[in-house]
């Protein structure tokens, strides 16, 4: 390890990058999100004609050859390519240029809920059709979820802590939270952290169709993802990535970095209830939100915006609403809560990272993105969901919830930058 100052104990975000169904790059997707556009459309990445769900939020403007050499771009699993692009944009945005020696203290923690399912499916088919000798030597490295972190470290020479988190749809939030802990305790001076997912393939679609978790509104894709609306009928699967450059506050200040915001609370809990359903009293989500707020030391009325997990499933939206009321009490009705999944679908392991990014941009620009497709109120979902139209508001602190199959609950609280 290099000789370096004591950690300040504060962790800030100094660079951001994202690939989303509303576009590649923050400057592309953010205006479209504020305009309330939907990124949901009929599936093109595979022939979905035989599946009960035939719509998804695909990334339309992404070309792996823009981010990787031709050999790798041709064959690498999409989840890794999306992470490489997100990381490259974040590093460029941050202006962070560590010396060779300092790179020993820069780590990578980019999670994926599933990993290289497209590559796994293709190679499984090759083995079934041609026998074991037909399986690619790249099956294992391109399938394992930790390869996003591994690959980004190799491309950039970052030799600090290199790891991965896999907590289904809470992955992206856990990755940012765990990276915050790593920097806070001084094990790294900076981390490249976030989430990535590319689940729109035969096995991914088949699995989620079988779980009856997705919207079947195939004839009306723009209106399929409708969190908190009474006629919601499941989530819309999406893909993408969001990656942050996170740094020790004192070091970021010393190099004059632009600061998007600071991590001030990271709450976690487990439901210990069911593999896919949230606990019926929302106790797990309640405890994660409570823990994050306690760490932040904030009063409830200081949280100016909650980016909901808001998947558009019956149970999530009802029970997340309950969790917010459990913790905030009367203040819950005065706090704007929106689900940006209404526009970009559910990007699974990338979702928590994309939504943390949405929180930072909300604070930066003073505007809260809407929940689109909110038409018919549900008596069980009775908060202010910022329906259909973005709203100007000064926001100094945000909370973002993420929940994953397995009963993983995460809340991140971020404060505005300087």
């Amino acid at each position, binding site marked *: 390890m290099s000789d370096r100052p004591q950690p300040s104990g504060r962790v800030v975000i100094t660079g951001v990058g994202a690939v989303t169904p509303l576009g590649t790059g923050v400057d592309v997707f953010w205006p479209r999100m504020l305009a309330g556009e939907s990124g949901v459309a009929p599936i093109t990445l595979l022939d979905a004609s035989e599946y009960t769900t035939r719509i998804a939020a695909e990334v339309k403007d992404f070309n792996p050859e823009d981010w990787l050499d031709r050999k790798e771009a041709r064959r690498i699993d999409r989840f890794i390519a999306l992470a490489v692009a997100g990381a490259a944009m974040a590093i460029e945005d941050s202006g962070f240029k560590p010396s060779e020696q300092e790179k020993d203290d820069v780590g990578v923690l980019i999670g994926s809920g599933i990993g290289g399912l497209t590559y796994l499916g293709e190679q499984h088919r090759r083995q079934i059709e041609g026998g074991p000798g037909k399986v690619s*030597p790249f099956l294992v490295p391109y399938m394992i979820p930790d390869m996003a972190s591994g690959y980004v470290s190799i491309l950039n020479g970052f030799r600090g802590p290199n790891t991965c988190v896999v907590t289904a749809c809470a992955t992206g939030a856990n990755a940012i939270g765990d990276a915050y802990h790593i920097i806070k305790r001084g094990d790294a001076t900076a981390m490249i952290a976030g989430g990535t997912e590319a689940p729109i393939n035969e096995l991914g679609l088949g699995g989620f169709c079988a779980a009856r978790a997705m919207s079947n509104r195939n004839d009306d894709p723009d209106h399929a993802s409708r969190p908190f609306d009474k006629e919601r009928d499941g989530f819309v699967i999406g893909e993408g990535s969001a990656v942050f450059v996170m740094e020790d506050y004192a070091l970021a200040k010393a190099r004059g970095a632009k600061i998007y915001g600071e991590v001030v609370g990271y709450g976690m809990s487990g439901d210990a209830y069911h593999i896919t359903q949230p606990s019926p009293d929302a106790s797990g989500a309640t405890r994660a939100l409570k823990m994050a707020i306690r760490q932040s030391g904030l009063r409830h009325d200081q949280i100016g915006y909650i980016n909901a997990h808001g998947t558009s499933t019956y149970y999530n939206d009802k029970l997340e609403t309950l969790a917010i009321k459990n913790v905030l009490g009367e203040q819950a009705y005065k706090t704007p809560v929106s689900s940006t999944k209404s526009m970009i679908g559910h990007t699974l392991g990338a979702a928590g990272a994309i939504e943390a990014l949405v929180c930072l941009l909300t604070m930066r620009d003073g505007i809260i993105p809407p929940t689109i497709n909110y038409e018919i109120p549900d008596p069980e979902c009775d908060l202010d969901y910022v329906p259909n139209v973005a709203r100007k508001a000064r926001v100094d602190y945000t909370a973002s919830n993420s929940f994953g199959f397995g009963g993983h609950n995460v809340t991140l609280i971020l404060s505005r930058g300087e």
Partner: protein
Amino acid sequence: MSQGILERVKKVTVEELGVKEEEVVEAASFTEDLGADSLDVVELVMAFEDEFSIEIPDDEVGEIKTVGDAVSYISKKSAA
């Protein structure tokens, strides 16, 4: 015959290794000159198997170090 094989070996190599066609000369070594690592070589050999509908046993892969080696190995196999 072997001219046709060379062209097809070149095509597969360009595709698999992402190299320029003019680099794929008979004397070029896959690992030394064309940037292939050990995993790339396995993938490349599998692509030759598919392209030429042949089997290349693991203990014969070592014979294929250059583009020219691949052409003569495949010519021999295809003639057999």
